[in-house]
């Protein structure tokens, strides 16, 4: 080697050792044995397919232009709700539609869409006759029976004022926002209903994102907060003013009162996105978790006196495992290790871990993302929708993450990050660890799209969970599992009498096959979405649940003994099991059908 080259190389060595890290990038924090590229998994009985068009769901989500020049184009729209609006026993599907900057300015934004579940596996678009006719830049949705009249209502968030639709019970909805006093303000995102004071009426939490004027949004690359990895992108949320979340108290007469200030909610005006309610500390009162973008997440513990305390940082659920702020999006509560306490899954941005906060049962959480095998696998993905669900009915909750970048510009760079991404389904290995199923689990999980909302339901009442996923500027996906295994399951529909009609907040323990599972009825969650309120429990090989124990928000408790698998049980507060209906195509392993047991008054 020449002397000059030696000189030059020495210089390079010095330079390199001194500034090794790539300026804008940090690597995975170092913690997991798994590969970023999922291992090829042998074909199993679990195969997933996409069926939306086949079953009659024809809808394209409008959300800004293709280049996503402004933050509202990348984050907005995509909320999904499963609700049985016509009480025919089959969950219907509601999609929130967004807009474009031009359409929003001209008042020509498209309508949101409601699809009626025909009960035969198909859907019919009933939007036009539904009375759901507000247009604007729609974002998220939550569904619940806020007026306890027996029919689920809808709350839809928008940029510039939200809408409460009351279900009239005749297939139509009425915009009652003004009378209810629940219009909100600013840029509404995720929402959730829950009876926070256990008075039998559902209160409402609305996460607000940023306070911006669409007409005054900065151009890509025009300021330091308008770049990502040095690439010019839309501006924000950093550098923008956070919107303050809203807490509404239900006054019982069809109206709400904004109690945000006195309740002590979101004084920091974080960038709120996903919201979910659950009793995190098991004190009998619903708490609130808010996934905030680029700021600490909030865990509001319910003090029981109308006030809340954000214990996010102290609880360990506000930051990453190492105390870093993350870009939180979708969130869900669920007991993934069957210890009777609600854990948390949360989606975050790319170049970062997604969170799996394990509830330590002492008021604190530990982020187990790496230990669980999620950390490395999810590193490059941008996760919006996030749900716990038991897709294989084995009694252990799995995790589904709906992914999609916010910056189409990423496709111009071979970083490994792409704008369209596939979704990730993590199978629970029952030891605190998860395995990502990958593309081998069927074409439904191999799709690469820019996903946002995610909501789950057993829409065909066959005992297996399906999931709806919204995609930016594209049709939604309705994913179902085929070639199912033989595991059993039950669906539980709760009807409150003293408690709120939906039983939201009710704690349910299902004892079956030597396993004790726990869940709560909840509205809202994931990314701007709302799952079917019926609780789904996989029972494995068990032909029945030894016990189904319900603890209602009113404090009343009841137990259904020997609840047979393979159908939908209705449990009414104070009355026990009041109805049972077998699944449409439920796998039968028990000798006696559920119907025969109900007829004989067992259970």
């Amino acid at each position, binding site marked *: 080697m020449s*002397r*000059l080259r030696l000189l030059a190389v020495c210089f390079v060595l010095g330079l*390199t050792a001194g500034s090794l890290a790539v300026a804008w990038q940090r690597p*995975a924090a170092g913690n997991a044995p798994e*590969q970023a590229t999922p291992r090829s998994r042998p074909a199993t009985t679990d195969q997933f397919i996409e069926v939306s068009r086949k079953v009659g769901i024809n809808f394209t989500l409008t959300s800004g232009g293709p280049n996503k020049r402004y933050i509202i184009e990348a984050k907005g729209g995509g909320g999904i709700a499963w609700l049985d609006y016509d009480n025919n026993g089959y969950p219907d599907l509601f999609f929130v539609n967004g807009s474009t900057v031009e359409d929003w300015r001209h008042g020509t934004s498209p309508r949101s869409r409601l699809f009626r579940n025909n009960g035969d596996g198909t859907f019919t678009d009933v939007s036009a006759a539904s009375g759901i006719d507000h247009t604007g830049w729609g974002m998220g949705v939550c569904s619940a029976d806020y007026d306890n009249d027996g029919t689920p209502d809808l709350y839809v968030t928008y940029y510039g004022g939200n809408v409460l639709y009351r279900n009239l019970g005749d297939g139509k909805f009425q915009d009652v926002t003004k009378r209810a006093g629940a219009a909100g303000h600013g840029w509404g995102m995720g929402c959730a209903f829950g009876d926070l004071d256990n008075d039998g009426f559902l209160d409402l939490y609305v996460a607000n994102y940023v306070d911006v004027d669409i007409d005054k949004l900065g151009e890509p690359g025009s300021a330091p907060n308008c770049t990502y990895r040095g690439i010019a992108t839309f501006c924000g949320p*950093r550098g923008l003013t956070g919107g303050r979340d809203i807490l509404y108290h239900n006054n019982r007469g069809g109206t709400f009162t904004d109690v945000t200030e006195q309740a002590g909610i979101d004084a920091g005006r974080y960038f709120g996105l996903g919201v979910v309610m659950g009793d995190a500390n098991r004190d009998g009162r619903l708490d609130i978790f808010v996934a905030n973008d680029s700021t600490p997440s909030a865990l509001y513990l319910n003090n029981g006196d109308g006030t809340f305390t954000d214990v996010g940082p102290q609880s360990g659920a506000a930051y990453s495992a190492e*105390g870093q702020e993350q870009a939180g999006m979708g969130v869900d509560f669920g007991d993934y290790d069957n210890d009777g306490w609600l854990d948390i899954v949360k989606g975050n941005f790319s170049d970062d871990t997604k969170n799996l906060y394990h509830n330590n049962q002492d008021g604190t959480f530990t982020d187990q993302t790496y230990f669980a095998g999620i950390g490395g696998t999810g590193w490059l993905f941008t996760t919006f929708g996030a749900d716990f669900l038991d897709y294989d009915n084995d009694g252990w909750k799995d995790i589904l993450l709906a992914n999609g970048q916010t910056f189409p510009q990423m496709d111009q760079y071979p970083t490994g990050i792409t704008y369209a991404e596939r979704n990730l389904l993590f199978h629970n290995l029952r030891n605190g660890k998860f395995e990502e199923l990958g593309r081998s689990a069927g074409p439904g999980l191999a799709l690469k799209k820019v996903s946002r909302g995610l909501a789950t339901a057993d829409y065909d009442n066959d005992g297996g969970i399906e999931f709806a996923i919204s995609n930016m500027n594209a049709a939604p996906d309705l994913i179902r599992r085929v070639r199912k295994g033989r595991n059993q399951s039950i669906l539980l529909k709760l009807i409150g009498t003293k408690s709120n009609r939906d039983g939201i907040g009710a704690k349910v323990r299902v004892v079956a096959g030597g396993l004790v599972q726990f869940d709560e009825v909840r509205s809202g969650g994931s990314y701007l979405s709302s799952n079917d309120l019926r609780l789904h429990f996989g029972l494995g090989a068990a032909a029945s649940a030894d016990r189904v124990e319900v603890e209602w928000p009113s404090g009343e408790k009841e137990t259904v003994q020997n609840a047979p698998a393979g159908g939908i049980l209705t449990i009414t507060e104070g009355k026990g099991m009041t109805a049972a209906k077998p699944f449409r195509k439920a796998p039968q392993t028990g000798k006696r059908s559920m119907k025969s047991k109900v007829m004989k008054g067992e259970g």
Partner: protein
Amino acid sequence: MLATIGPDARAFAQSGDNARAEEIGSLVEAGRLEEAIREARRAVEQYPRSATLHRMLGAALFKKGMNSEARQEFRRAIELAPNDPQNHFNLALVELSENQNAAAAQELEAVVRLQPANAQARLLLGRAYHNQNRTLPAIEQFQKALAIAPSLPLAHYHLGFAYQSQGNLSAALQEYQLEIKANPDFYEPYAHAGGIQLGQGNLGAAEELFRKGIQLRPNAVQAQYGLARVLLARKDLSAAVGALERVIELKPDHVEAHYALARTYQQLGKKDEAAREFRMVSELHARSAQRRSGIAGSTPQ
């Protein structure tokens, strides 16, 4: 032999330029840069079409920190000898030193086109690509560099870092271990490999790596913090407090150490201390928010 003289340079070289180049090279090596520059300028005046002398002048200027003039000289050398990879390589070094990664990549691409087996150029090209969000081509270049020169210093490290930035931790760990084997006095791979071992629950291996890192660089924050995390994982809380305090002493705004300290105090039942540290975490985040570029995941590290 003083400097590489490519065939084209040789064709353009005028009588006596090699001797002048030898002389200038000796001055540069002796650190007599001003003298070297003066001599090189004279030589270039005398032999204006000598690519070698322009390169030598460029090298002296570069060493002196006069990048702009060095760049001009290297460009002139390339004009005179466009197929001499050394000139492109040297110009790439100037561009890299100023984080002009696109320009550097262009020159390094010329080097590897002219000299496909130049492992060092491939390593630097990989770095330039990685700094331009071109991680996948970067990985390809690192792999090619290693195929040519399996023990090329830093190549395993950079490949490991690229893998780690993809979330591919097991491959990253393997590369860090190879770098340590080839280059045992280089600190960085110890800290990164230690972090991965810690995450896998291999506390003994993690501790060993962090301690070796600290031996090499006693004030290295990352290794000190890693060691504190090992102690935390072993539930040796009082020792962890001491280790975390040491990290904070070295880097008072180390938010992760404050957070870990807060949670450790919490476990020790020291509520006031925990509250103080949680407040510090919040303050540090608020302070850094201004400096960040928009999304938490893009935080410069």
